[in-house]
């Protein structure tokens, strides 16, 4: 009798666990041939503001509607979650970090439109001031992310490896709290987590930064099947950046939209302030004059080459993954076409709903 009760409890527990599933399981992401579904990350800045602005762009919505590709957006916590649905007819676009971008590009499933962020991922520590002092410490990270890449770059720069630290996988928005509580000794994350941690106590400090880039990508199947719709989407992306560049007021509004979207996803208020969000966005995308154009190689390695090697070494992508797929993804000309037809694509006309 006791054994039966125990088994029943176990089954109930398993069932409960199984019913919880992933947060995106409730999304209607059934494959469809018509429509433009985009995965956005409302927890990362400036991607949150870009996404929040785009989904409120009436011009974009109307144009896509006309083209028979109604716009839908879905909120994701992390880029790899978006990659799961890209290229399979379930998501047609997304804002991804460099690592998930490479993962998707290797599968020859995406076209890279342009950069959504050019910034640094930071390693934030509570008391240690040097990377080498993190040996043996617990470090929070998001596996396979640009912050993970930055962490490894930092460890390698002082002769350490992942084996010499304790990696603790966690959500990026949990990292500042975990650092405060002492659950971890440091974390590797993108904004705004580092800024949040730095603002909380002067004991928190950045011990390492490495460049990372977010990209706005479209599924190859969509750009091939619906090139005009794809360009309208690109235009919406460029317009969002231009609109936020126009005034601080616009940027602050975009920040408020992004915070609302983030709270809707997590159920918790945003940990970053509007000022912080605007500052991050301006620093990491708006103040880059060439953005959203992908920076040209300056004689050294091509864009994403280091990250490509990093993922291959980690085994996140097959060892024989072709670099040509990355080059192919980067060769998408949609942005150039849109920028060359500013009037047609109304890059300086703005109409956003609240």
């Amino acid at each position: 009798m006791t054994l039966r009760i125990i088994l029943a409890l176990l089954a109930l527990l398993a069932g409960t666990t199984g019913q919880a599933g992933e947060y995106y399981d409730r999304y209607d992401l059934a494959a469809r041939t018509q429509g433009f579904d985009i995965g956005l990350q409302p927890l990362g800045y400036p991607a949150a503001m870009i996404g929040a602005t785009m989904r409120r762009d009436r011009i974009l919505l109307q144009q896509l509607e006309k083209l028979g590709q109604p716009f839908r957006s879905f909120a994701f916590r992390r880029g790899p979650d978006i990659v799961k649905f890209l290229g399979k007819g379930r998501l047609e676009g997304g804002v991804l970090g460099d690592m998930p971008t490479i993962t998707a590009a290797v599968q020859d499933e995406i076209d890279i439109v342009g950069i959504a962020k050019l910034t640094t991922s930071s390693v934030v520590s509570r008391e240690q001031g040097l990377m080498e002092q993190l040996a043996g410490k617990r470090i929070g990270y998001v596996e396979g992310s640009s912050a993970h890449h930055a962490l490894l770059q930092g460890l390698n720069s002082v002769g350490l490896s992942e084996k010499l630290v304790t990696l603790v996988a966690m959500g990026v928005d949990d990292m500042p709290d975990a650092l405060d509580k002492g659950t971890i000794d440091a974390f590797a994350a993108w904004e705004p987590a580092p800024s949040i941690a730095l603002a909380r106590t002067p004991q928190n400090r950045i011990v390492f930064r490495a460049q990372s880039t977010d990209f706005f990508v479209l599924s190859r199947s969509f750009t091939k099947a619906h090139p005009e719709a794809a360009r309208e989407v690109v235009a919406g992306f460029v317009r969002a950046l231009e609109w936020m560049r126009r005034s601080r007021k616009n940027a602050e509004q975009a920040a408020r939209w992004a915070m609302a979207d983030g709270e809707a996803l997590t159920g918790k208020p945003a940990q970053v302030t509007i000022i912080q969000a605007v500052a991050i966005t301006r620093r990491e995308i708006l103040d880059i004059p060439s953005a959203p154009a992908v920076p040209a190689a300056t004689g050294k390695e091509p864009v994403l080459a280091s990250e490509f090697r990093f993922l291959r070494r980690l085994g996140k992508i097959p060892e024989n993954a072709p670099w040509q797929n990355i080059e192919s993804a980067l060769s998408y000309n949609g942005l150039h076409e849109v920028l060359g037809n500013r009037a047609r694509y109304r890059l300086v006309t703005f109409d956003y709903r609240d």
Partner: protein
Amino acid sequence: MPAGKLKPTTLSSRIGLVFGTGAVLTVAILLLVWYFGIPALALHGARDRLIQEAINFQNQLADNQQMLISNDLRERRDDVEFFAESDTLAARLRDWREGKQGAAASLQSTVGRLSERMQSAYTDRYLRLQIIDPRTRRIIASSDASDPGRAIPAHWVEQALLPNNSEHLSLEAGSDGLELIIARQVQDPDGHILAVLAAYAQPYELDAGISPLAEHNLGQTGAIYLYDWQGYLVSSHQRHSGDVRGAAQPLNRHGIEGSFFETGPNGREQLATYRLIRVGASEGWTLVIRRDTSDALTPLHGLAFRASLFALVLSAILILVVIVLARRITARISAMTDVAEAIARGETERRVPAAVANRNDDIGHLAAVFNTMVEKLESWNAVLDREVRKRTVELDAEKAAAQRYLDIAAVMLLALDRNGRITMINQAGKVILGVTESDVIGRDWFASFVPERLRASVRDVFLRLMTGETEIVRNYENPVIRLDGREREIAWRNILITDEAGHAQGILACGIDITDRKATDAELARHRAHLEELVGERTTQLAEARDQAEAANRAKSEFLANMSHELRTPMHGVLSFARLGQTRAASLPPEKVQEYFTHIADSGNRLLSLLNDLLDLSKLESGHMHMNYSSTDLATIAREAVSQLSALAAGRGVRLLIEGSDVAPLSADRERLLQVMTNLIGNAIKFTAADSVIRINWAAIEMMPDASDAHGSPGWRVTVIDAGPGIPAGEEEAIFDKFVQSSGTSTGAGGTGLGLAICREIISRHHGRITASNAPEGGACFTFALPSDPPTIEEGGNP
């Protein structure tokens, strides 16, 4: 030990040494902990803190510089952006494109005014402004009047003209060094590029942005470098750089931010802080701050040295203070030690002085307790002493009782220790061995009492018994040597003495002296073995005895026969002549009657003599005749005997010749000696023929009564030599027997046959000897020897 002295081994010096060592170690450890911290406990040392401060400073400085440089760039870019988006400039450019007259001059004028405005706002920041035709790459207008029309084939121009590159920054080599070029597209509302506005500026000067405090905190070796995205040095700031200004270490890291320990060109460890300065969409510029780690730790080293010095001095002072305090404390302990030593020497009346014991602290309490303890010990000792004495008396009594029990035993009880030494022996044992207890206790049994021929083997058995190599033999027989050297055969019965662990500690032996028994057994065996022989021998002896008895019987018969004859003869003579007298007295002449009475008298005398001899001999043999010793003279006795017998000798025609000395003193019974002389001389007269001489001689001699005597005693030898027929061979001894006369006597010489027997007894009673022999010249020679002073003689007493 006086409390004032300080010996190397004293407690105070040990306390001082221990404390000092501990203090030094503690201080050293504290210094090390202060310097290095305890990483395991997340305790940061001064070194880590100082390095962290240096890191923080460098991070802060880097952040500040990053901000300043970024802001500077931002401002410059904003300036250029502002001017590039100027409606006036755009209008002038449109006019120029349209070929309107005066448009070029107007454009030039505009650029000139812009340049003046910028120059006036930012002195020396901007070098010049240029407007470049995107179609021809030529300068349309410039702040430098000589520039218009000149082509700029530079790569940066092409980059600045890219459709999506509204702004482009680059560093180019100018005539006076590096020049920062901020190029921005001037676009019409439709986004077409009208021209490129290029502002040439001085690269950021690090020196200008370093505060005095930052200068100070950079230390002696700190330096700041600014590199462009290709690794070229844009600007640098080095303290005390001398001739190395402008020279910089190569850029080690690209595209990252953070602080690292690196090895500088001089081989020293440096702390390097990197910052990225975003310049356009490229990797940007890299700001590097470097400083020798040792430089950062210099304040700490000085502090550490001073702290160490202070700690050592403090430790030394503490050690001295501790030693002084310890000496004060140990002085009291030393006083206690002195008292303890005195008590150990026997001065039990000593106590710890009241000055020490009455102090109200631990040592005072210890001293008081010590005194109490000593008194208690003294009291207990007295009690113990009494008990020990009492117990000793009891033990002695018990031991004596036990010894009595042991001594009661008729057998030898002997105890040996592991080494074979005697630890106990009872009285019977002592008797057997002929020793006293002090002779044996502690002596080696085997060396002292085991015969040499058996010693080695017996000792070997004993030793193997002690080591457990062999088992005890409980019953056996072994001889022992008495103290006087005689052996006794002993039958032993042994038991092993063991300790509580069962190890042999010795043996307890019980020995019975079986020497006599063994002798008896041997004798019996011999007797058993030779019983027939003994029987034969006995038979022979019995036969001899029978013969002797028969001879004696015969002698007795002969004596009786002789006696009866000798008695009857004179008695017949008496009675005969008496009867004759009775019958014939009346008729006989008086002379006949006289003759008859003479015969009666003679016979009577003869009978009397015989009876006297018998009586004398009987007394002599029974020991009832006592010798009356007195100092006398042998010569006088001899002459008296000669005198008594001279008539007889004359009657037989024999001459008596005395040949001895005139004086021969000795101690003897005079009468008995006279009797001997008389008998011998009388016998000689009897057996000497007429006209012969009987010689009587005496001489002093040294008598040897025992062959073993080394020294003899003075005496006299008397000889009487007759001229008779001599003594028949083989009868020299027999003639001294009773009732035995020589075969010559039986031929008519007469006698009772007792005279020589009587002489032998008398001489024997005088501790002398009498012998008979034949003289060389013929005749018998009777010799007797007497000591002058017979032994154990009382004057007039019996020997």
